[in-house]
């Protein structure tokens, strides 16, 4: 079971106690105590990067970064995102939940592009740059 508290989605598990009991007034019986365990599942917001996954050297590739809720629905908030690839980081301002940037590489290879923002799950896109 998942539960949202604030800006975090928690995975909620109920674990029956092996040695602790509680008295159930309704049935007048002792029953195992149930522990409630919440663990971080994800943040309520996430970033997604959309665009072609291949290009050629020195050819700009336009990428769109979108802010979504954790179920994938678009959000129209504005925030500052950090976009990183191979150690290079740029800042991108998302307006109404959307921002665009051009990715260009002078060398060939596979690049993992990551979009991050505070208290958001990151977005990932792998781009192959061909000769």
């Amino acid at each position, binding site marked *: 079971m998942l539960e949202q508290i604030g800006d*975090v989605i*928690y995975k909620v598990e109920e674990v029956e106690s*092996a040695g602790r009991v509680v008295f159930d007034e309704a049935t*007048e019986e*002792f029953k195992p105590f149930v522990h*409630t365990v919440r663990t*971080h599942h994800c943040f309520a917001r996430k970033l997604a990067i959309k665009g072609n996954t291949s290009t050629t050297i020195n050819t700009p590739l336009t990428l769109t970064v979108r802010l979504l809720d954790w179920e994938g629905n678009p959000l129209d908030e504005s925030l500052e995102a950090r976009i990183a690839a191979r150690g290079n980081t740029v800042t991108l301002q998302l307006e109404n939940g959307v921002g665009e940037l051009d990715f260009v590489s002078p060398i060939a290879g596979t690049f993992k592009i*990551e979009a991050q923002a505070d208290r958001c799950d990151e977005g990932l896109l792998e781009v192959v740059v061909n000769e």
Partner: protein
Amino acid sequence: MSSGLIAPLLGLLYQIGQRGDSASTTGGALARLAWLVNKQDAFKDKTPYIAKNTSTARGSWVDVVNISGSGYLTSVAAGASDTDPVGIRFRIVIDGVEKFISENEVAEGMIFERAYIPDHPMFSDSGLRLPALNMRFKTSLQVQRYATCESSISDICVIAVYQLD
């Protein structure tokens, strides 16, 4: 094993129940004892649980585990797969009271092991050692982590090992 002791106790309580005017209370005690007899072997098998949180979130507190219940916090550990230095702080709240907060990364380094934690800690060959905390919680436990890193990308993994009553 102890059923030799508990069986006469059950008989004694039953006799008290016959004489007393609070049959339901005594009946409850009998039910509790009967339940304990049936469950006695379970007390030896308190399974440790591991809560694991892997994320890139930094600059704010993130829950590793948040429990309403009772048991022991056995250990916590953290690691990061990044070439840049990663600072990780812990906050431990027991029964609603903040019992521990690492004020800086040096404190974290003194108390907690910093090592790379793979997806399956049980198969780790990185020499990870978990510090023994054995902190008792009676109503609630909350373990949080706070990460700082110069680079924007750092996958930070934190685990909390705990037992439930």
